[in-house]
């Protein structure tokens, strides 16, 4: 037939936009991609270590949830990530690129450690709230500076917040050297290991109960704040278009500064949690890159609190699991980073396939 569509010169594959994929299908696509990622990782590990993929994942699961201690370590890590992501959410929703969570965490951590060292005589019900408030103020101050400059002079907040991280790291080094214990170790060591002053107390016999409770409270707060308050509405409008915000009569500079104060404060509290609720010490690796990982968490979750918790869980699980594989299979730490990288990459790729589909060149029909 002469009207047969002739396509031999057509491009091999084209990308076509699609909109309005139903929610259930989106979930299926995302789950499929995580599964594919796990299979790919399994084969990769199998190729390197000759462990079979199933036992690799058994090891991973055991590494994360093998016993009560490991489970709680994973949960602690998850809460840490989630809290930082919750802190970043309002800033990123406002399209304020707060890359400075690392620094804000460290400042909160330094203040908490300082309180623990100098105020160890205070009773816990005074000391802990004080540390909470002061580290929040510290984190907020660290975020305030870039916010003011952005609001006033429209400086680039990405670079500014990033640079503030390096200042915070240097400050941490200074205080680590200052509080060195024992002398010459170049570490602070466990602070107040004797009287545990400034440590999160055990509640219901659970060491990390407060970590969980604190994060959940902030998760619920952030959910309500972003969705149902006037502040949350302002943040969405500014994030969408500053022109619209000005048109609606909003004071964009004030909203920007206020939101960054909140964002920095929560990241500061995350630093407090890292010191008081987890490591009980301070070092330049107290933040440990979580301030960056949490950006991925916040974006993947589209700033929804419950989703942020879920993604934090996934990453915390991968972290502990991958570390376990690395040690069991005598691989180094980079192997676990690789696995996490592959899985995150697949999760991001799934978004592409939700928004677009590929059209391949049609096979030429016979007889032409």
């Amino acid at each position, binding site marked *: 037939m002469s*009207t047969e*569509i002739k396509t031999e010169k*057509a491009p091999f594959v084209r990308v076509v936009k699609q*909109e*309005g994929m139903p929610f259930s299908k989106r979930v299926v696509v995302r789950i499929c991609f995580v599964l594919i990622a796990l299979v790919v990782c399994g084969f990769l590990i199998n190729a390197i270590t000759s462990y079979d993929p199933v036992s690799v994942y058994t090891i991973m699961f055991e590494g994360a949830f093998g016993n009560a201690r490991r489970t709680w370590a994973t949960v602690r890590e998850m809460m840490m990530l989630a809290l930082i992501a919750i802190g970043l959410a309002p800033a990123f929703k406002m399209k304020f690129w707060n890359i400075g969570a690392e620094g804000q965490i460290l400042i909160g951590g330094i203040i908490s450690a300082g309180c623990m060292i100098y105020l160890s005589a205070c009773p816990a019900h005074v000391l802990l709230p004080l540390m909470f408030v002061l580290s929040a103020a510290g984190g907020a101050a660290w975020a305030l500076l870039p916010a003011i400059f952005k609001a006033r002079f429209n400086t680039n907040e990405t670079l500014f917040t990033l640079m503030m991280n390096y200042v915070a790291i240097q400050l941490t080094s200074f205080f680590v050297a200052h509080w060195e214990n024992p002398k010459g170790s170049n570490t602070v060591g466990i602070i107040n290991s004797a009287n545990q002053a400034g440590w999160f107390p055990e509640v219901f016999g659970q060491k990390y109960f407060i970590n969980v409770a604190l994060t959940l409270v902030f998760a619920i707060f952030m959910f309500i704040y972003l969705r149902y308050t006037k502040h949350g509405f302002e943040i969405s409008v500014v994030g*969408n278009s500053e022109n*619209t915000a000005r*048109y609606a*009569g909003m004071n964009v500079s004030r909203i920007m500064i206020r939101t960054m104060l909140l964002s920095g404060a929560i990241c500061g509290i995350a630093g407090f949690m890292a010191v008081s609720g987890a490591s009980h010490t301070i070092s330049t690796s107290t933040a440990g890159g979580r301030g960056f990982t949490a950006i991925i968490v916040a974006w993947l979750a589209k700033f929804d609190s419950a989703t942020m918790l879920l993604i934090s869980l996934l990453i915390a699980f991968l972290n502990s699991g991958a570390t376990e594989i690395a040690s069991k299979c005598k691989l180094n730490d980079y192997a676990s980073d690789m696995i996490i990288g592959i899985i995150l990459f697949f999760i991001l790729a799934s978004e592409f396939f939700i928004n677009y589909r590929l059209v391949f060149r049609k096979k030429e029909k016979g007889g032409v």
Partner: protein
Amino acid sequence: MSSTALSIKNLSKYFGSVCANDHVSLDIYKGEILALLGENGSGKTSLMNMLSGIYFPDEGQIFADGKEVCIRSPKDAYALGIGMVHQHFKLVDVFSASENLILGIDPSKPLDRKKINQELKTICDRYGFEIDPDKKVYDMSVSEKQTLEIIKTLYRGANVLILDEPTAVLTPQETERLFSVIKNMKKDGKTVIIITHKLHEVLEISDRVAILRKGAYVGCIETAKADESKLTEMMMGEKVTLNIERPEIKDKKLRLSVKDLCCKDAEGRDHLKNISFDLYSGEIFGIAGISGCGQKELLEAIAGLQPAVSGSSIKYFRDSEDEATELIGKTPRAIRNMGVHLSFVPEDRLGMGLVGSMGMTDNMMLKDYDSGKLFFTNRRKPGELAARIKKELDVVTPGLQTPVRRLSGGNVQKVLVGREISADPTVLMTAYAVRGLDINTSYTIYKLLNEQKKKGTAIIFVGEDLDVMLELCDRILVLNAGKCAGITDGRKITKEEIGLMMTGSERKQDEH
């Protein structure tokens, strides 16, 4: 009839679930001027984009000189002699005319500026273009940029030229010049396709008219046998009478008095210079001018979004002429809090008037979300308002929570205009209120404006289609490079006179 230059068979293009072109078949003959007519969103541009290699068709075939071809990129299109001038020009601002000309052509050849300028001159002489080869694009007027774009396609050897809404940005005089150039090209044997939705232009310039409606091909008609009402009927699919009402003004009261308004940009250049006018209740006050002549700044200055130079004054009168409120130096919120009922439909609908990612309900509360003392937002009233606007203005949306950017352009504008009118304004400002809208929605908007006018609202209407403005506006202020070129009576002035005022002193400046 001469042989076909291009032939389209069953061409379709889909964007997601939206069908932009639905099995369109069309023949284009050598040496003709074909007008491609259709409403906004009827698929004219996407069809032409498939010919020029911007889009790849989802279905169908294209034949050039009787042979089937596959156009995968603009390069392929040029190889077949097809060149397109897009509505948004694709020029490098910091390059000169001749540099833009050779952009992307065979980089291995040495750069011979003399030869290029020579070739440029040949093309200009042949068709009657006027252009300075060394002028930078950023110094050019819109009309010059368009000329350069057309020369560019000719320079690259195009025999079929596609012009996408070429007259939308031109004054009546510039349009005349463009049409004479197009006729010269036709004489030279070139095929020209003009995308447009202006009927009188179709009748003036084209040999044949092809009509698209909702992505589908309706038919082709020889221009000599067509008239406006026939074309409208084909375009709309039904007989419609298109008249814009202009009710007489009743009960004129002073509402706004602008005196010596001056605005400067960040570099200290004048955006607006000494603009003065009075605005009365119950009138539609048009503002005409080439785009970017200060229209945006004027409206934004009144809305409190644009700082004005000291000495400027904008007075708002609530009830009587003794009770004046100065608007200069106040923020939009301060103006609102003083009880000034000022509504503003800005040019950038999704970037300023609405929040694209929010639904109708949230967009309704954009301006009064902070009413009430509670820390929380109240979505009950905005929800009711959204439902009312959806019903009264027939907004097509899957739901009140569907992000408004997913709606079509016409529905987006209905949401915005609906909200601004619902605030019961005494002064209503609209910027390019019907840009990109289909005919029916445009007339809905005109009707809404006239209803407001009858209610005694003072309306400022910034427009670009002079024919419409002459039918709708009571008075028209003509802006020329930020200055007021005069305030005219909309019932008496002609299009040509306004066109001259729009460009008048600009030419005087050139002579100096």
